[in-house]
């Protein structure tokens, strides 16, 4: 294999393109609820999404990327001389790009995450047989695909019931605004801060022990809570209506949850585009393969940039469309669905499990619907999504197998 540099650059370009498509579709879907409820303007949504997405990818993105790069199909199962691993990863990347392009064209509800995982399994099977695929890991991944929408739904359901009973319909609304709201804010902030401090600063070589992250998270949470309580008390002195205050609080909270979703998207989906790139970058031109190397920062950065560029070039139109169509979402419901989904996706990311951010968000919306929070949810669409799960993985695998075989014949 002669020009390693050229091959790496080509791979990087394809990875960038894959990330670009992710930013144009998936990330835009996540921000739609905030624009629909009127809490964020289109410009603000794009800005918030861009910053949060970068943070998510750079701070927490390496876990899922690792899984895709070496967790499902390990390079150790391959012979360096045959370059099968390199070709295979490249085939997985290219086939995913083509597969998503076609699915997009025909408007099919296909998940980028499912596609890349299916593609990697595909090349593993053709290049190394069933033995080289880590079926235990695949089992966990498939379980996470089913459980992430369910967990998202349960979280959103629980949070919504809580908000409605303890805040919106509490017998003593004044007390609810003064006490329950600040406590709730403490909880929300702590969860968010903890999620990106925990394991999150290793990339910047600022690894901190768990109890320190918890401490920092609680401190920030309490500060936010105190701030909210003081603000509420001052507004109530000015005789402001407590329901107005709650509504305004949730408008701000929804900005927070929207960023949280974008952050979680960065953490979980950046790997979809750059997983194979990382695998190739770490192992190209080496004499032995190894799995100890982490994900290089430049790879994470490339993926995150691809997503953000995709968001800014094409994604903003998707946000606009989604926002215009989803007019039924109030800030409280939007916040609940987003917070439930983001927490789930981030939790999965920290475990290195690649899940579909969009499908988890759908699960969270259904959770709110089950709590009687949405006028109408079309379960037929949900059925279509579930059906697509069973089709996507085999289809993506077959695509990859074909491309891999083409590559081997052409390059050998």
């Amino acid at each position, binding site marked *: 294999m002669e020009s390693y540099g050229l091959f790496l650059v080509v791979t990087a370009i394809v990875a960038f393109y894959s990330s670009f498509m992710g930013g144009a*579709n*998936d990330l835009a*879907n*996540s921000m*739609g*609820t905030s624009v*629909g409820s009127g809490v964020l303007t289109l410009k603000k949504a794009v800005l918030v999404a861009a910053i949060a997405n970068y943070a998510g990818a750079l701070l927490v993105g390496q876990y899922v990327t690792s899984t895709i790069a070496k967790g499902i199909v390990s390079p150790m199962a391959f012979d360096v001389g045959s370059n099968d691993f390199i070709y295979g990863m490249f085939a997985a990347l290219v086939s995913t790009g083509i597969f998503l392009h076609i699915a997009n064209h025909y*408007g*099919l*509800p*296909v*998940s980028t995450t499912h596609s890349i995982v299916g593609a990697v399994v595909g090349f593993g099977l053709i290049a190394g047989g069933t033995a080289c695929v880590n079926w235990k890991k695949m089992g966990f991944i498939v379980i996470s695909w089913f459980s992430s929408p369910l967990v998202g739904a349960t979280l959103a359901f629980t949070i919504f019931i809580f908000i*409605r009973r303890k805040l*919106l*319909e509490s017998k003593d609304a004044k007390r609810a605004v003064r006490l329950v709201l600040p406590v709730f804010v403490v909880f929300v902030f702590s969860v968010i801060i903890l999620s990106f401090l925990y394991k999150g600063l290793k990339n910047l070589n600022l690894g901190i022990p768990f109890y320190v992250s918890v401490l920092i998270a609680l401190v920030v949470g309490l500060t936010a809570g105190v701030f909210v309580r003081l603000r509420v008390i001052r507004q109530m002195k000015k005789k402001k209506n407590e329901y107005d205050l709650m509504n305004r609080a949730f408008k701000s909270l929804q900005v927070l949850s929207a960023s949280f979703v974008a952050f979680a998207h960065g953490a979980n989906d950046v790997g979809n585009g750059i997983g194979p790139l990382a695998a190739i970058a770490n192992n190209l031109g080496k004499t032995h393969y190894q799995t100890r190397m982490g994900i290089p920062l430049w790879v994470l950065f490339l993926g995150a940039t691809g997503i953000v560029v995709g968001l800014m070039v094409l994604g903003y139109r*998707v946000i606009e*469309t*989604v926002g215009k*169509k*989803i007019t*039924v979402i*109030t800030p409280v419901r939007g916040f609940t669905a987003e917070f439930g989904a983001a927490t789930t996706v981030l939790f999965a990311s920290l475990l290195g499990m690649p899940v*579909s951010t*969009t*499908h988890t*968000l*759908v699960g969270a*919306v*259904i959770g709110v*619907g*089950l*709590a*009687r*929070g*949405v*006028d*109408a*949810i*079309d*379960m*037929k*669409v*949900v*059925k279509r*999504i579930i059906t697509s799960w069973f089709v996507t993985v085999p289809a993506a695998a077959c695509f990859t197998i074909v491309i891999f075989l083409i590559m081997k014949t052409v390059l050998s």
Partner: protein
Amino acid sequence: MKKLYEVFGKSPFDPLVEHMQKVRECVDLIPSFMDEYLKGNYDSAKKIFKDICRVEHEADCIKRDLRNHVPKSFLMPVARADLLSYLKQQDNIADAAEDLGAICMLKKLTLPKPLHEPLKEMIQKNLKAVYLIYEVTAEIHEISEKGFSGKKADKVLKKIEKVEYEEWQCDKAQMSFSKKLFELEKKMDSTSVMLWFNIVRVISKLSNASESVGTQMRMMLAKR
């Protein structure tokens, strides 16, 4: 995933409120219709009757549209059967208004002077029930916001109790009018007496249907 918004279905509550507005429009025409009819201006009464029919038809179109857009695959805060039943009860009010005009158009009836005021009062009482239930439907978005329970639900239940009270008053008014009608039967031909008796029963349908709407809402409100 194509687009996230596909998960959200068209809200059935918007057309429900629209339908109720048409029902109210229909019912609003009854006092002027009866005024003209009792005065003997059968041609102007007929014009107003045509209006009632037109508005009732518009309500039917909204009803049909709603039914076409609530598939079994929708997950809603209320059961599909409950929603459609609520719509049907609402529609019965408009149907009663149209039936009233239709019976009156069968024959150019006259009514003895002493019975004019009692009849108009009865109509007003029935309309009161309809307007009360109109308020209930108009607030369905808010009711849904609060999850069909809590303080809002309690307020709505109170309104429904008022509707039930008004319906009882309408029943009493119907009985007392019918008694007065039969007291004057020697002054009228028997066909007219029976037709007026029927007209009064149809007028009562307005408040009966309103009460049914209220009962349906009761079933949709959760008791936590």
